[in-house]
């Protein structure tokens, strides 16, 4: 019975190999996931053909062959899983509230983000009254915060009563700058 099963395994293995050869031939132009695909094919070829052959002619090697086949399957499956996890991480990060990605200094208040975001979205030189009108705050409050932001180099005064965002301010908005560390005098 065992001999018959070994022959059955070999026959099934040959059928599997034919399917694998067809897949390898039909997918030869596909560039994306090529590594995934060829490692999987190699793993299943080893398992389907070398496994039954080892069973017939060198039984002591059978499980080593199984191990090698499973290793090739691991190499094939690792990439798509790794990419998917990485994609999830990016999606989670990008879907977060933008202010969660920033590193505000201890001196900063939420209004500073609103002011900097307005500078960033308009890409213009703005006056305190225009800013106050657009973020629905008083001109005095905006003036106070602009002085703080200027002192920490997140905005700069172009001329009297006119401001624009600096490179440091853009860096803070993008989360690449620590509001405390980089802007402390």
């Amino acid at each position, binding site marked *: 019975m*065992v001999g018959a099963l070994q022959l059955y*395994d070999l026959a*099934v*293995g040959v059928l*599997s190999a034919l399917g694998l050869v067809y897949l390898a031939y039909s997918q030869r132009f596909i560039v994306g996931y090529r590594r995934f695909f060829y490692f999987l094919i190699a793993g*299943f070829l080893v398992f*389907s053909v070398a496994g039954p052959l080892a069973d017939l002619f060198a039984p002591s090697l059978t499980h080593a062959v199984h*191990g090698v086949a499973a290793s090739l*399957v691991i190499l094939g499956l690792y990439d798509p899983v790794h990419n*998917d996890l990485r994609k999830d991480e990016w999606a989670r990060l990008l879907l977060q509230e933008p202010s969660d990605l920033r590193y505000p200094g201890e001196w900063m208040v939420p209004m500073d983000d609103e002011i900097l975001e307005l500078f960033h979205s308009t890409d213009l030189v703005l006056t305190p009254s225009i800013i106050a009108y657009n973020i629905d705050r008083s001109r005095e409050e905006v003036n106070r915060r602009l002085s703080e932001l200027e002192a920490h180099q997140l905005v700069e005064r172009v001329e009297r009563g006119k401001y624009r965002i600096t490179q440091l301010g853009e860096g803070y908005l993008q989360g690449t700058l620590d509001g405390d560390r980089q802007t402390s005098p």
Partner: protein
Amino acid sequence: MVEEVLYNLTVAFSLATGSAAGLLSLLTWETLRRSPFGRAVFVLSVVMVLFIVYHVLLLVSPASAAYAEVFKSAIFTGVMVFIWMLVWSQRRMRSRPQVERVP
């Protein structure tokens, strides 16, 4: 004695790599389950579970047990089903009419 140790080592190697491949196949299925290859990857996960169970059986029972041989044949059959499902999925994808692109 040496042969027995070698045998146990190779079975343990297959078990370890098979478990890792099984875990990865489940994660891949999670990723691709809504794709045309979803069903095939599910069959792959089932095959990998059978592969793990087979090697556990070999560790806990004599190698010559007939049911272990039957189990192994079931795995080979599962692999063949997986591969031909991939072929079928791939042919079905190719036979779909191409959608015209908006210029």
